[in-house]
């Protein structure tokens, strides 16, 4: 048996939604992490919870990309596909890279299953997979044979098939096995028989690889030289939730989450609900309007009010966000974007809520907008959003998306005493400049323009706020035309004046590069990877990635002007490009995709070249 060293590999597990593909994908990821590879993952779920078995609609998959060098995306095309049934093969085979490996269970390719998957002829014999290396492994039968000694029912025994598959892959890539076995023992602690069966199936898969002559080579993907530090594997939603907990910790404020379940944001609620000890108080409201209302009510009381949702929910929250703009209270609004409009593609990704976040309210209603760029970055972005909310007494919209939410990568854990101090500085003394000894809630800090914030319970500072226009300083109701003009401009100025970091540009050769790729949000990985590939081909392009979407960095216009052309890739129809053109940029090329899928680095590489050549022609 040969062992070949390779730099990276992309593996996709696919099966029915009940086949446990997310579980084995997750374990395979854990193994790669334990081994020390860099990695990125991309799970894909059907929108239905249990779509009819064996149909293409019911296919769930999990892609893992791991490597000996640092990587940025879950990979464009799988090198290895494990397909548990014909439907999984049908849904995924066309994605596999040419010459790639497919592992299937031939026993599953019955006439009935083929028909359910929509195959007219058997792909295992009709030559349609000729460009791939297909390994037929009777995973079901082998699993049954292995676990039969435990006396489990057939159905339960067959459920361990996914671990058999994981066993084969673990052997093939020399993955550590203890982490899987430990996990199974812990997960099924209350059902030792099930734990045992899964472990047996897992080992049987490994032994199958070891003894069969089916596989000519084993591969080795050495550990990556990640930056020194302590790491943990984290999904975007988990990182975002932890960022919210951390924001409560460093602000000294109670976190109050008001939310209503919606894919793909619900996992943030699930994660936060585990951390009530911090305290994080979670309110599962009756709808999104109530959810954001509860968050704002908590903020009025001096807590860090947070609400989490996806596009349809953000639409419902817009009136209350407008109230928060008027009341100038901190409010963290998380929108995990999914495919729209309407119910759209609930389990897929898109960046089409940008303009909704920027402008989706009545009146002149500016809010800060922040977007994380990778799953682990969701932690820092949540903290940054909370910093802005508390410091400037403003709603902040955090724009994540489905790809970040469910994607995962190693997270270099923060040094806790380096986290920002975002304590709120509540008012405790009357501040009226007229010496009347009363409290004027709209007196501002000269630098940040943030208003004085006195929370209920503070003696002598009783005041009323609300949605009616406020007189500057006193905060009393005012219908005065000049005052309204002043206040509208002031609210705008406050948001425009938020201090945000300058835009960093990765430019391999600043003297000669003529093309800048300017992205935002989850497209960071594929864009950066495409830029690296172009650089390797001797075509240098620069990459800059926006985290602050409102306000944008102060040096942005200057950076854009530095380049002959600026390509703006987005998973929408050009919303960021519209904003940038509104700032006066004339050298933009908008590159868009709305498939519900993240960009592939390879596609971007080709597209960037085409845009550069097209522009040069």
């Amino acid at each position, binding site marked *: 048996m040969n062992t070949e060293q390779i730099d990276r590999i992309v593996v996709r597990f696919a099966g029915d939604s009940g086949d446990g593909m997310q579980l084995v994908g997750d374990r395979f990821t854990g193994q790669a992490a334990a081994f020390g590879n860099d990695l990125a993952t991309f799970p894909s779920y059907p929108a239905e919870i249990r779509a009819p078995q064996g149909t293409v609609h019911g296919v769930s998959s999990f892609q893992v990309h791991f490597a000996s060098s640092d990587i940025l995306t879950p990979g464009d095309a799988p090198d290895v596909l494990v397909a548990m049934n014909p439907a999984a093969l049908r849904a995924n085979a066309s994605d596999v890279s040419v010459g790639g490996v497919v592992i299937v269970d031939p026993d599953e390719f019955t006439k009935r299953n083929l028909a359910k998957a929509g195959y007219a002829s058997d792909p295992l014999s009709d030559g349609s997979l000729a460009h791939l290396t297909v390994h037929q492994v009777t995973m079901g039968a082998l699993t049954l044979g292995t676990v039969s000694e435990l006396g489990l029912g057939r159905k339960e025994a067959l459920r361990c098939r996914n671990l058999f598959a994981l066993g084969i892959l673990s052997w093939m890539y020399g993955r550590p096995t203890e982490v899987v076995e430990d996990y199974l023992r812990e997960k099924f602690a209350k059902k030792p028989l099930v734990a045992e069966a899964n472990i047996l199936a897992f080992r049987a898969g490994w032994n199958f690889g070891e003894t069969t002559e089916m596989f000519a080579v084993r591969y080795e993907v050495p550990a990556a030289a990640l930056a020194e530090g302590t790491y943990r594997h984290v999904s975007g939603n988990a990182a975002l939730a932890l960022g919210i907990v*951390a924001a409560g910790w460093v602000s000294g404020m109670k976190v109050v989450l008001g939310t209503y379940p919606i894919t793909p944001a619900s996992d943030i609620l699930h994660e936060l609900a585990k951390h*009530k*000890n911090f305290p994080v*108080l979670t309110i599962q409201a009756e709808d999104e309007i109530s959810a954001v209302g509860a968050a704002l009510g908590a903020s009025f009381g001096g807590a860090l009010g947070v609400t989490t949702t996806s596009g349809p929910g953000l639409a419902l929250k817009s009136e209350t966000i407008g109230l928060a703009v008027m009341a100038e209270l901190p409010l963290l609004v998380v929108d995990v974007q999914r495919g729209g409009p309407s119910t759209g593609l609930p389990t897929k990704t898109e960046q089409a809520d940008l303009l909704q976040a920027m402008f989706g309210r009545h009146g002149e209603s500016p809010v800060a907008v922040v977007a994380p760029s990778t799953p682990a970055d969701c932690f820092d972005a949540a903290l940054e959003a909370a910093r802005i909310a508390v410091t400037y007494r403003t709603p902040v919209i955090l724009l994540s998306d489905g790809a970040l939410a469910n994607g995962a990568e190693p997270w270099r854990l*923060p040094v806790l005493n380096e986290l920002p101090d975002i304590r709120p500085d509540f008012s405790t003394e009357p501040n009226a400049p007229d010496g009347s000894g009363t409290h004027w809630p709209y007196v501002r800090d000269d630098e940040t323009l943030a208003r004085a914030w006195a929370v209920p319970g503070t003696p002598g500072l009783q005041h009323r706020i609300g949605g009616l226009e406020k007189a500057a300083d006193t905060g009393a109701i005012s219908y005065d035309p000049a005052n309204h003009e002043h206040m509208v401009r002031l609210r705008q100025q406050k948001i425009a004046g938020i201090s945000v970091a300058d835009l960093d540009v990765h430019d391999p050769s600043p003297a000669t590069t003529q093309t800048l790729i300017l992205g935002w949000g989850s497209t960071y990985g594929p864009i950066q990877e495409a830029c690296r590939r172009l650089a390797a081909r001797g075509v240098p392009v620069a990459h800059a990635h926006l985290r602050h979407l409102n306000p944008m960095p102060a040096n942005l216009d200057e950076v854009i002007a530095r380049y002959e052309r600026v390509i703006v890739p987005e998973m929408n129809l050009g919303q960021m490009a519209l904003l940038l053109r509104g700032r006066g940029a004339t050298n933009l090329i908008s590159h868009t995709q709305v498939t519900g899928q993240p960009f592939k680095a390879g596609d971007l590489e080709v597209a960037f070249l085409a845009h550069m050549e097209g522009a040069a022609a």
Partner: protein
Amino acid sequence: MTALDVPAQVEGEQGPVSGLALVPRGPQEQKPADYRSDQEVRWCPGCGDYIILSTVQSMLPALGLQKENLVFVSGIGCSSRFPYYLDTYGMHSIHGRAPAIATGLAVARPDLSVWVITGDGDALSIGGNHLIHALRRNVNITILLFNNRVYGLTKGQYSPTSNQGMVTKSSPLGAPDAPFNPVSLALGAEASFVARALDSDRKGLAEVLVQAAEHRGAALVEIYQNCPIFNNGAFDILKAPGSERHLVKLTPGEPVGLGELDDQGRHSHLVVREGGRLRVATRSEADPGQVLIHDPGDPDPTTAFALSRLSAQDLSHVVTGVFRAVSRPAYDDDVRRQGENASKASPPDLEDLIFDGDVWSVPSPRGARA
């Protein structure tokens, strides 16, 4: 006192716990004028809201709280201007959403007495969903529903409590909608405290308001409020001479009666149970064994519901006072208790939280296997 050092919990005392149990009491004597803000009150002359405001300002000192620990949250409507006129903390929010906002505030701040001011349109039309859920959850808030049976602020369209057939600018041929009965609705929504009062009955209103504030959990008080501009005299039948024949004032432990009083102070009419229903009977025809004795603490809301429907929209027999006052866990107490129990079981530590699970270090000792 700030959000950061609020008192812990209502400890497991026996019996009903006051809605104000965690709110600091003030040592100083207060006068109604102490609750007046510097804002000029701007309702139409003769509006029922004035008398409700002055009744509230007069009863608040009786609660013995400090002004800074009271918060009035309102929606939108004429009635929702109320918080501006009180020298407490307040938020005039958006149409229909005050119960949601108050829920978040009550959860975050057990040391506050949180009030919601709402109208019939605000609470029952646009905000109907929030109202029923606040009642169902039993959030520790006190909700005053100003029912003038019309949309005042938007100049007189019919509301969800308007009489069917009411002619307004939006219903020149008569309103086709069937109305809500707010007390029935609240009881159906599992409310633990439901009362009704009349704007002009200062004493009755004040009594009900004190009890509502002291109730732990959601308290709903429907207040019949006259809008002289768009629905003038809607409740006159309850205020004019002879009103005693239409008004039932509930007193716990007492027979439920109405009508003129005889020389022994007994009502001419009584509410009796008959065939599983309630009916108004003359004293002479009433079977003494079937006369209803008011019990707001009855765990079963059936009788309270029947009382709320003694007459329909027509006000022929209007019941006022406290329909229902039962003790059940308040939502916000439970939410906080979960947090506190969790903190006791596992004291919060950010480092533990973040460095949790499968954590590895680079250069990794395990990576060395490669």
